[in-house]
């Protein structure tokens, strides 16, 4: 992901569509600009952060995190709760370093998961291409 290029396109689109450019235009044009501009902001936010970008990529494949979802993995949540409590009660910078190391280990595991996702996405793309190359009635 070329973040510099992303920012360039973002700024360029906002320069064209931002509501400030439509102050003297009709209400319809103002509304349209406000909608589009908000959408561009959202898109930029989503693409800038690796986590939201990953979640969005899954959504494109029809796998979404629903508002209603609840994590009930008690073992995992206990670890998260414990980390939060230790951060909250920590009075010693050295201890903060220790906690950070633990979290870092988990971030590395997350990176591994993302890397695997990359391979799977390549297969999803190959599937799409393959589908197009096969005659529709071949099944």
């Amino acid at each position, binding site marked *: 992901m070329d973040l510099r290029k992303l920012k360039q396109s973002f700024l360029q689109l906002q320069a064209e569509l931002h509501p400030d450019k439509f102050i003297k235009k009709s209400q319809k044009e103002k509304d349209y600009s406000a909608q589009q501009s908000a959408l561009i902001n959202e898109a930029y936010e989503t693409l800038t952060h690796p986590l939201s970008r990953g979640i969005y990529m899954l959504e494109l494949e029809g796998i979404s*995190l*629903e*508002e*209603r*979802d*609840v*994590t*009930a*993995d*008690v073992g*995992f*949540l*206990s670890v*998260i*709760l414990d980390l*939060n*409590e230790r951060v*909250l009660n920590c009075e010693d910078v050295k201890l903060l370093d220790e906690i950070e190391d633990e979290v870092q280990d988990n971030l590395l595991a997350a990176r591994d998961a993302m890397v695997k996702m990359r391979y799977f996405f390549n297969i999803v793309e190959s599937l799409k291409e393959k589908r197009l190359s096969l005659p529709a009635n071949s099944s």
Partner: protein
Amino acid sequence: MVIDHYENPRNVGSLNKSDENVGTGLVGAPACGDVMKLQIKVDDNGKIVDARFKTFGCGSAIASSSLATEWIKGKSIDDAKKIRNSDIAKELSLPPVKLHCSMLAEDAIRAAIKDYKVKKESKSSEAVAAN
């Protein structure tokens, strides 16, 4: 009063997890990474006599769990189960993007009750086995 749950959350803390009369519910929201622990202490008549929570998350999640603990204290576990996230959301005037915070609180109540019941059942089956 409602704002107060944001500024001065009630019942923050923990109950003794290994107490057989204490049920612990631990839930999290994948959409935002908030985590909520809600505990109930139940007397022999099935009444919730105490409730505590610890929530790491946004203000709305903290307020939702604070309100939830206030509401369930003094209720029977059956009545506590009837509390709906929509009641919590309405009382706190949560905006639509924060509805999941109230859902988390509802799920935490249910998880705590379930944990309490599982504990009680395993206790009574132990007693039967001992006889």
